[in-house]
């Protein structure tokens, strides 16, 4: 068992723990913390795959900004314990089986498709350098890049409009 494999198993387990924790937590804050755990573990996985820039972005933006925002709002709204009410009938009878089926199917498919590729991944992962990434970003994908900046502008405006106090 190589170090990569061991690392993968550990981080994979951590993500799964975090995800399950997200679902099973009673308090929203606990769910948020579990999600942070998931993100950090994912960052390590990205590093394992050789996407160093993405790993950094994940920590900085996702875990560092987005999750913090989540925690802010939870605190702001004083979200208390989650009340357990009954599942809606549809969710219970259709959703659960559907979810399980979906999972099973995806698993089956992926296994079949990619089982033979185990050998293909024998190559050492090529580290994707930031230089190459930014070259691509600013030449081929410059339009989406600019559009996302406009998107962020809109998001800021929207958030400001939505959350301001009602004019009395």
């Amino acid at each position, binding site marked *: 068992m190589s170090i990569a494999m061991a690392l993968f198993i550990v981080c994979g387990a951590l993500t799964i723990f975090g995800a399950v924790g997200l679902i099973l937590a009673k308090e929203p804050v606990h769910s948020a913390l579990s999600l942070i755990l998931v993100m950090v573990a994912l960052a390590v996985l990205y590093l394992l795959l050789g996407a160093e820039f993405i790993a950094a972005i994940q920590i900085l933006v996702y875990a560092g900004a987005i999750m913090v925002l989540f925690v802010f709002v939870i605190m702001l709204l004083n979200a208390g314990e989650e009340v357990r009410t009954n599942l*809606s009938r*549809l*969710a219970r009878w*259709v*959703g659960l089986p*559907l*979810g399980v*089926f*979906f999972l099973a*199917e995806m698993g089956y*498919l992926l296994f079949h498709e990619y089982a033979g590729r185990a050998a293909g991944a024998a190559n050492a992962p090529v580290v994707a350098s930031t230089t190459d990434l930014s070259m691509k970003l600013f030449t081929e994908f410059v339009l989406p890049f600019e559009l996302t900046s406009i998107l962020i502008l809109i998001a800021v405006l929207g958030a400001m409009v939505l959350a301001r106090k009602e004019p009395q």
Partner: protein
Amino acid sequence: MFILNHLWIILALPLAGFAISLLAGRHWPHKYVNFSSVTAVVLAFLAFCELAREFVHLAPQQPWIQSYFTWMTAGNFRVDFALQVDQLTMVMLGVVTLVGMLIHIYSTGYMAHEEGYYRFFAEMNLFMFFMLTLVMAANLVLMFVGWEGVGLCSYLLISFFFQKKSAADAGKKAFITTRIGDFGFTLGILLAFWTFHAVDFKTIFAQAANMPVEGMHSWGVLTSICLLLFAGAVGKSAQLPLYVWLPDAMEGPTPVSALIHAATMVTAGVYMVSRMHVLFSRAPAAMLAVAIVGAITAFYSATIGLAQTDIKKVLAYSTVSQLGYMFLGCGVGAYAAGIFHLMTHAFFKGLLFLAAGSVIHAMGGEQDMRNMGGLWKKIPWTYATMLIATLAISGAPLFAGFFSKDEILFEAYAGPNANHVLYGFGIAGALLTACYMFRLIFLTFHGKPRYDEHHVHAHESPKTMLVPLVILAILSIFGGWVALPPYWGGVNYFDSFLGPAFQTSSELAAKLNPSWVEPAHSLELQMTGIAVAVALIGFLIAWYVYILKPELPKKIAQGFRPIHQLLLQKYYVDELYEAVIVGPCVWLSRNVLWKIIDVGLIDGTVNGLAFLSRGVGGGLRHIQGGNTRSYAAWVVAGAVAVTIFFVWMVR
């Protein structure tokens, strides 16, 4: 050459009269309606006179055809609005316009006190238009247009007093019964198109002339066409078994009975058979059928007329009987004789109806002959003209009917397609004709008055009604003289005029019956003698029973009660039709077509669709119930479905 080049004028005049009277006549005084409608018909008659002059001057050997525009084309099928004039058309045009004109003039007097004066004249003009279209049509489809149109006008005019249920029912009965015949006619047209690939007469006759004559027992396509077309004639011309509408049609005003149900519409069938003579003479089986139907109807109807008490019903059955004679004439190949009888019949039957109308007018609406009597002193002009017409129809020598009926009977006895059995029916019918017609005269005009003389003041009709009577009476006397038989030393102008029209058939008849020899003049004289004797016998019987021994009719009626009832109730044919045909139809319509199909199936389908809509909508609305979590569930379900779809598609 003016009218010949503008034949449409003759059609346009009555149509214009119809339009003007209908649209504007409602509030006009009668004068104006007369001006538009009656003058339209008078002008049409004058146009005919001019046409006759031009035609005789031109003397064409082939029919003169004028095609105005193409009405419809569909592949091979092509119908033009084309009018044609040949000798046969000229005779028919003359009869229609002349008698029509006289009856229009008569109606101004007869209908003067009726509601809906303008409507009457509008419908009469429309009828003239359609009848002229029928007569001048150069193809089967246009003729059928005229055929249906006169049926429509007949319906409108019979139910003129539409508030009376019996009149409305009579109109419906007329239309529906003739419809049955028209179905056969339509099939005939279709079969003709299928055989000849054209519907205009010129092409059909040219092709038929080259077709072989079909045998008496082989059922070829020509025979089928002729029989189907004749079915239409059976309906329209009130022959057995589709005659039942004509007596009921007497519900209409008397001028209508005179024009439509005596002189013109009912003769359309005879005209059609004569027009299609080229086909008929090549289908002997069909001709025999025509002759048989004609002869039997002539006799059968005369028996019914013997027992009727309503003056107009007697004349109606008389019309059916005389039409039978015309068909008998056509059926034995004597087309010219049939048309000749059509012409003379238009004169004397029209006169009979108009005079009957005068009697009814004089009696203040009374139509039952048992309540009349002794009128000859009070309405002398009506009496004189009616007597002349009766002499004509009975076949008194030198009157119009004598020559025409005689010619038909003679051809039936000794012509190329002679049939002695049919001749027997014919001569028996002639006896009965004389008998019941004189019965009518004696009951109506002679004897003691059987009505209350204080309440009913019988008075003579106004001049507008009398003048047409006199004109028709003159024609009933002298109208037959255009066809004086050769053995009398006269020249048969009529036959020689119509000769070119029927040329192909007469030549064919000669070819088919080489053993037929022109009968001797002495035989003709003998036949004439027999006919006159028979008519005299009928007259004497009527004289004896109704004048000499007036108590005899009651005794006969009581003594021969079953037979008398049978005749009086018209052989119960109406009741038979009611039970066998009409009753089941009505039952079917009510219980199956209405209750099951209309209410159950059609309403059920439409209502069911609405119900289904509502149900599905009611079910589907739960998808968006305002419950956010169910929205979430649906989103996931949709995503899963799409994924599965794409996954399986890729496979």
